[in-house]
């Protein structure tokens, strides 16, 4: 018998191919984070979609470690209607603004972390 592939493994398999994916329910309504069943306000079954990768910064903070440069942590509202935590790169962490338009890029697996989506500001937002 073959073990079921986990939602995380499927998500990371998309990322490994350079794609940010999310789930949709029977009526194309988005679900994120990936899971094994449709939550109560959605209708199953869930299927996967590849995101266009465009979104808007919903909330933002930055952290300045004692031993390194400041980095951003943000919540991104994707155009397809789901939200995820990520990081906006390519501009100083403290210059990330709510409402800024951003585009996803896949950061390859690194050490203990699997591949993950990070974001760059769209050109016209700089």
């Amino acid at each position, binding site marked *: 018998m073959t073990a079921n592939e986990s939602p995380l493994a499927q998500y990371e398999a998309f990322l490994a191919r350079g794609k940010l994916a999310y789930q949709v329910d029977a009526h194309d309504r988005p679900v994120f984070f990936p899971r094994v069943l449709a939550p109560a306000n959605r209708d199953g079954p869930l299927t996967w979609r590849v995101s266009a990768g465009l979104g808007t910064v919903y*909330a933002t*903070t930055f952290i300045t470690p004692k031993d390194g440069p400041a980095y951003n942590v943000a919540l991104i509202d994707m155009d397809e209607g789901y939200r995820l935590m990520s990081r906006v790169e390519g501009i100083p962490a403290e210059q990330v603004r709510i409402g800024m338009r951003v585009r996803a890029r896949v950061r390859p697996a690194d050490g203990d972390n699997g591949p993950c989506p990070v974001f760059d500001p769209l050109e016209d937002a700089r």
Partner: protein
Amino acid sequence: MKGRLTRGAAAIVGVAESDLGEVGAGMSVIDLMGQGVAGALEDCGLSLSDVDGVFAAAGQSRMPSVALCEYLGVRPRHHDSTMQGGSSFMTHVAHAQAAIEAGLCEVAVVAYGSTQRTAGRKNVAPREFNPYETPFKPVLQASAYGLAASRHFHEFGTTREQLAEIAVAARQWALKNPKAWEHDPLTVQDVLAARMVSHPLTVRDCCLVTDGGGALVVTSAERARSLRKPPAFVLGTGEGISHLTISNMPDLTVTAARESGAQAYAMAGLGPRDIDVVEVYDAFTITTLLFLEDLGFCPKGEGGRFVQDGAIAPGGRLPVNTNGGGLSYGHPGMYGVFVLIEAVRQLRGECGARQVPRCETAIAHGNGGALSAQSTVILGSAATV
């Protein structure tokens, strides 16, 4: 089934803190719970032989009610280790009342302990790995609350100075509390100039990291009236859960305290204007602000302006977090039990220099996780029942 607890059917009759701040070497979480239980039983004149319900939660114990029963040498009829972070103890009070009303127990203790300061936070509170958050290295929980603050600033024009006023008010209350960890005055400028933890929150916008524990004794209203101290009757309780992780919070400016508060007010037959003292879990300055809004003390978005000019400090228009709060009194990690302890003491008139005059009603609001698990208890003196 009635579907709701009965207003005033149970009361908190005993309260006590354990050792606080930095506890002695080798002191365990359950030792601190034991100190709290001993003190709370002494407070009301009951003994371990009266206890037939045991409730406990802790970040450092996987089976805390079982561990506490072993330690106390009791085999209670009912026990409960419900764990939802810092609001666990408000929910324990509601569960204790439910158990008392259902006849499952009559005298319940609710206990907490933490040695996070002496043991080192990294040793005692390993975060669950979340593949959708951990890779981005948020400093949890500070970054979650920083994100919420960023959104409140954006939508309502709230400022860092306004948040700092919350920290200053907490400090002014703490200066009136001999048990508070912080003893030095604090200014808005001090808060703004402090080390940034996760923007816009500096270390002075964040709760302390201390050891500590405490306990409550909850019993039926009937039994409560025969005990040593004036009972704090449970007039209302409510719960609300909207998410676990900050990335799944539907609106970062609105917490489920709206639901928990509405339930508690409905059960109590009271509204915000009827509350004499407000004790809310202040994990961060933004937390106090959100709960003042969501519990109805000011409209949504007005929290920043509401707290200005010392409005929640001693002598202000609304007494909030009169023990000094998690920001200045102490914060061992799951602070909710101390919120309840202070509310009970205010109702009894035991608070000395920080006593709120004519205090007949108190709201004790707990917060767990990243603004996740909200639980509200409204308490009242005998005059309110």
